[in-house]
């Protein structure tokens, strides 16, 4: 190999090393939440869903999970003739208004067709999306209560 060619190879190697360095620098300067942080947040939002499902809905006198189940099953007898989906929506709205909305978190809490959205765009990717099962009254089926947290 001629001396000129060797110099060119050396130069290319230096350029490759510098590019590699820049790529590594960008990778390590990434400020995205760590795996531990993600696990903790997922646990927090799962506890949010569990606490919500065990909260009593005053207009129906039973737990949210039962009202939500009646909403999914289309059973109007649980809340003295009131639409369980409307009561589910009201309870979800009030809890979210005092918690995630006040903290400035973008969310989408959904139970079938009942949805409460704040700041989550339709095509946005979710950071966390925990869900818990909601069983129909009498155990005839189940749905899912999902909380999506958006960036």
């Amino acid at each position: 190999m001629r001396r000129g060619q060797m110099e060119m190879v050396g130069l290319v190697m230096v350029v490759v090393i510098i590019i590699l360095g820049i790529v590594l620098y960008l990778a390590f300067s990434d400020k995205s939440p760590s795996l531990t942080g993600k696990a903790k947040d997922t646990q927090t939002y799962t506890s949010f869903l569990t606490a919500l499902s065990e909260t009593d809905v005053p207009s129906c006198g039973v737990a949210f999970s039962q009202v939500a189940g009646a909403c999914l099953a289309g059973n109007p007898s649980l809340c003295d003739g009131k639409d369980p989906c409307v009561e589910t929506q009201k309870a979800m709205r009030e809890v979210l208004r005092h918690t995630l909305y006040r903290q400035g978190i973008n969310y989408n809490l959904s139970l079938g067709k009942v949805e409460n959205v704040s700041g989550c765009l339709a095509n946005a990717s979710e950071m966390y999306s925990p869900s818990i099962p909601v069983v129909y009254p009498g155990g005839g089926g189940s749905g899912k209560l999902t909380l999506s947290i958006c960036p």
Partner: protein
Amino acid sequence: MRRAYTRCVRNARFEKRAQLQSMEPILIVMFLALIIGLLLLFSLRIGDREVEVTATKEASKQDLLLLGRIANLPELSCPKSESAKTYCIDMFKAEAFRQLMKDDDVARSSYYPLLGASEIAVEWIDMDSNGASINKSMVLYDNLNSSGVRPAVAYSTMYNPASPGAARMFATVTIYRRAG
């Protein structure tokens, strides 16, 4: 005349080449310095990141431990019949505990080994049958004398034994601990 000019041009070319050749080691040293600098920077960043990750892990573990302790405190927890999957705080017990921690310094210091230097606050949502709601809160324990605090949040339910219709309300337990 012509010969002298040719010699002059040749000498100039030779000088330019010599200058470039003398610059080569300087350029190589500069590149090496740049590479070594970048490597040092990476190693420092990796070290910082490892420390940060360890600190976050440790803090998360401490937060979870404290939340677990609060949930299992008989002074706060709901009756067995009312405890389900989540943490459940008895409102009457919480009020009595808050009063004790506020009035009795000896009692507060006796809880220090268990709850440490922290502030524990609970907020709950009192909904009525029309769908309206009020946010209520109380500080259960305050033994934190620090300006830089880090909150940890957990969700639970607040049980009101005097309200048979809507006994369990949505609650947020926030633990403030010293940051860093």
